[in-house]
């Protein structure tokens, strides 16, 4: 990307960025333009290329081809300038286990060049924000998974980065901790440019300004959550709660409605035109006991299924 083509409205720009590992193409020619202050989610299943993309943007992986800029700085030509303005909360909990929360925050703040007093002030705010003040002096190896994750996010914030990368920030957390973490991330919206990777649909739907759905290293859809859902608004989704469903019955239904999927205690069928009577008659003829039927709102999972032919959690 030449200087002439750089657009400083964007916090992050990538041009045809790719990464191969041997013959395996992890990221395949991604073009992204992420606005300043935007919370941008990369949504996709495990192995889709989300973390590889993040690592390339954080100067931790060299792209096989293509370029990326963060606030106008080329990630390959000027990594130190990029590292001055970014921070990352990696997928795995990245903390120094033998240090306490204060020391962990101090390590990250001061390594980024902040003074002792400034780091102390920011640490106080962050510990308060993440609900860790009371246990800030304990060695963090004694923390629960949720507390470690919150500290990990706080460590990415202590350097006050312009661009924050959160790689699967709620992975492995219980629902309560996950919701708590979402609230903390939501508080940062607009203040910083945030790139979030996730394979939780609700996370992307609730938090993101825009979502890129990524599969097999390629971006297959990009837009706001509503835009993505609207893109298949001409589709109908029918949820059927039923008993005695067999694989053969579901397979038979798929012959007519390819986007039929099994859910807990039933099935969901998506199509442009659904023949309600035909479906009910078919199921009853196969001995299925129908408990309830309902028309369902389109979700991002439906979008993903529609685009890729598979469910996000597969």
């Amino acid at each position, binding site marked *: 990307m030449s200087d002439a083509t750089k657009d400083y409205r964007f916090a992050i720009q990538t041009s045809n960025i790719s990464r191969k590992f041997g013959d395996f193409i992890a990221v395949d020619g991604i073009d992204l333009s992420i606005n300043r202050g935007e919370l941008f989610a990369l949504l996709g299943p495990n192995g889709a290329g989300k973390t590889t993309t993040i*690592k390339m943007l*954080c*100067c*931790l*992986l*060299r792209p096989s081809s293509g370029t990326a800029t963060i606030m106008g700085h080329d990630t390959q030509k000027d*990594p*130190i300038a990029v*590292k*001055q303005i*970014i*921070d*990352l*909360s*990696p*997928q*795995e*909990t*990245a*903390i*120094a286990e*033998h*240090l306490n929360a204060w*020391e962990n925050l*101090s*390590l*990250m703040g*001061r*390594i*980024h*060049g902040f003074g002792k007093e400034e780091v102390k002030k920011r640490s106080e705010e962050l510990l308060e924000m993440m609900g860790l003040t009371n246990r800030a002096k304990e060695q963090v190896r004694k923390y629960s998974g949720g507390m470690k994750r919150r500290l990990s996010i706080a*460590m*990415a914030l202590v*350097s006050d980065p312009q661009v924050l990368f959160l790689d699967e920030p709620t992975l492995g957390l219980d629902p309560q901790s996950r919701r708590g973490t979402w609230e903390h991330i939501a508080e940062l919206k607009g203040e910083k440019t945030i790139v979030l990777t996730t394979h939780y649909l609700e996370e992307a739907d609730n938090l993101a300004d825009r979502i890129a759905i990524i599969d097999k290293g390629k971006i297959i859809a990009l837009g706001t959550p509503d835009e993505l859902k609207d893109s298949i608004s001409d589709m109908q989704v029918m949820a059927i709660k039923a008993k005695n469903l067999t694989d053969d019955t579901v397979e038979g239904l798929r012959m007519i409605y390819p986007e039929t999927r099994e859910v807990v205690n039933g099935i969901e069928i998506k199509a442009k035109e659904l023949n309600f009577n035909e479906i009910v008659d078919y199921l009853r003829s196969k001995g299925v006991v129908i408990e309830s039927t309902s028309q369902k709102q389109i979700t991002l999972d439906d979008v993903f299924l529609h685009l890729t032919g598979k469910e996000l959690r597969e």
Partner: protein
Amino acid sequence: MRFMILAQRNFKEMFLDYLSLGLAMGLPVVMLLILSPISRVEVMFSPANLAPGIALFAFVMLQFSSSMILAKDRDSALLSRLLTAPLKSKDFISAYSLPYIPIAIIQMVLVFGIAALLGLETSGNLGIVFLVLFIMSMGYIGLGMVAGSLFTYKQVPYAYTTVLLLTIFGGAWFDLAVFGSGFQSVMNVLPFAHALDAARDVMVQGAGFSDIAVDFYWVLGYTIVFFALGIFLFRRRMVE
């Protein structure tokens, strides 16, 4: 001097590894006490001959401990986070090496202090001996950086064992001539035998710096190479 912040953390981490630290300090002293009585029948085990070998034996623990901390951080996600900080590979290598310098000095003081109590006599300048051994200790730390950059946490002990054997068979406790000239030639390519020869020549034969200059520069050259290699390998790991 941002790397000093990371060095401080590594210093704490090192002190929390009681076992490695205890072995690095205690084992050489124990070995010295066990082996020195043999000096009555074998001159190789006189305090002047033994102390440099025991010092090198102690330095191997520096190689082990420094590579373990680096490899452990590499294996965890912590290093990924640290790598997003605006530090260069030489900053990281400095931060992971610096905490071991005071330990190397304490080891030398301990080994030579105990050796003095056991009757160490020196014909030459002990300052030269300390200089050569200090450079060698840095070489071991440099080797630790190479092993830590190259190997996983689980592989590091194999690198340690290799370096330990090379040190022992490099003349720490044996006269290299015992194994024949072929073996001696191979071991003379490495720096360990040169560090030992230089230290022993100064203490036993009263050699001056000019007499041991070749050995000194041999050790210094290897130390520089080990650190340069550590930085190179770490840089390769920084951006894969």
